[in-house]
């Protein structure tokens, strides 16, 4: 895998999560108290950095085959979750993620919550909302950064991809002062799901002791094949789910609370 592919995979995954975290932080800041929301975001970023700092060296100590088996299996499960939801959204079985609607929900909840501060935090609700949003959305990215970086023995490039995505999304979000509803989130999730699934299956198979024909170059076949399979499933499901069908977007509410 080239550094560019590593960078792009982490960048896309981090951008998707950053958009979702930004929606929550904006809701906490605009309706409650910007200072407390930013304190919460900062505390979450410090906690995430500490997680990467602890996990990174610990993961690096694991023998490569065991690392590829365990981490590959986890990435594979993650990737299939992302792909499954992207296919469901693409075929109409789950509503497209609507950042504007998510923002409106968070705003309503924030307005209804009690006021009050603790210590240096003036608004505890805004602090915890921003902290949870940033930390939970960032945890999966932290895992991707650590595992992709260690597997490729190139943690700095993975960290760079994450940092560029966070800075870019944050800058655009604060420039427009509204949730980034125009981001093609499902397309990005489809791409990230394809990459996580492809690398997950590649690494876990190697970790199980099997050898791919053509070694690393088999990824050049694996990635497009996974994308085609997922696109094929989307087309088949969309074909059977017409706009007038009673099942359109019917099962969308079953996966609330998920990190993807």
């Amino acid at each position, binding site marked *: 895998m080239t550094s560019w592919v590593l960078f792009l995979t982490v960048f896309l995954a981090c951008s998707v999560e950053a958009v979702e975290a930004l929606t929550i932080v904006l809701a906490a800041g605009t309706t409650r108290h910007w200072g407390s929301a930013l304190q919460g975001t900062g505390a979450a970023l410090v906690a995430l950095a500490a997680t990467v700092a602890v996990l990174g060296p610990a993961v690096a100590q694991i023998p490569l085959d065991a690392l590829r*088996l365990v981490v590959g299996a986890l990435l594979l499960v993650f990737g299939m979750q992302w792909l*499954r939801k992207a296919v469901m959204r693409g075929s109409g079985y789950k509503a497209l993620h609507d950042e504007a609607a998510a923002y409106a929900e968070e705003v309503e909840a924030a307005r209804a919550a009690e006021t009050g501060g603790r210590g240096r935090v003036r608004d505890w609700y805004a602090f915890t909302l921003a902290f949870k949003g940033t930390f939970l959305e960032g945890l999966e990215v932290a895992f991707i950064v650590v595992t992709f970086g260690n597997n490729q023995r190139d943690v700095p490039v993975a960290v760079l991809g994450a940092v560029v995505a966070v800075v870019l999304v944050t800058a655009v979000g604060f420039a427009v002062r509204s949730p980034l509803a125009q981001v093609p989130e499902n397309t990005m999730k489809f791409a990230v799901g394809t990459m996580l699934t492809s690398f997950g299956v590649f690494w876990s198979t190697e970790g199980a002791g099997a050898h791919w024909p053509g070694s690393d170059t088999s990824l050049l076949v694996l990635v497009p094949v996974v994308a085609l399979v997922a696109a094929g499933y989307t087309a088949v499901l969309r074909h059977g789910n017409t706009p007038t069908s009673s099942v359109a977007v*019917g099962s969308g509410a079953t996966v609330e609370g998920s990190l*993807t």
Partner: protein
Amino acid sequence: MSSPLTALRGFGRFWYDFVVGDDWRVALGVVVALAAAYGLVKAGINAWWLPPVAVVALLGLSLRRVVRGARRG
């Protein structure tokens, strides 16, 4: 009184959602497929083809459950 238990449950639930996700059968299928690939490799068969086939099948089965659930409900 029950807050430590509630917190423990919440912690467990978070990690379950984080690692296993929405469809536990997919996670179980991945583990079984990799264990089978490991077993075949130990038996002298280079089973690189098994995990990709399992991925296609598991994703398809998971999506079929979504469609069936939607049609039922």
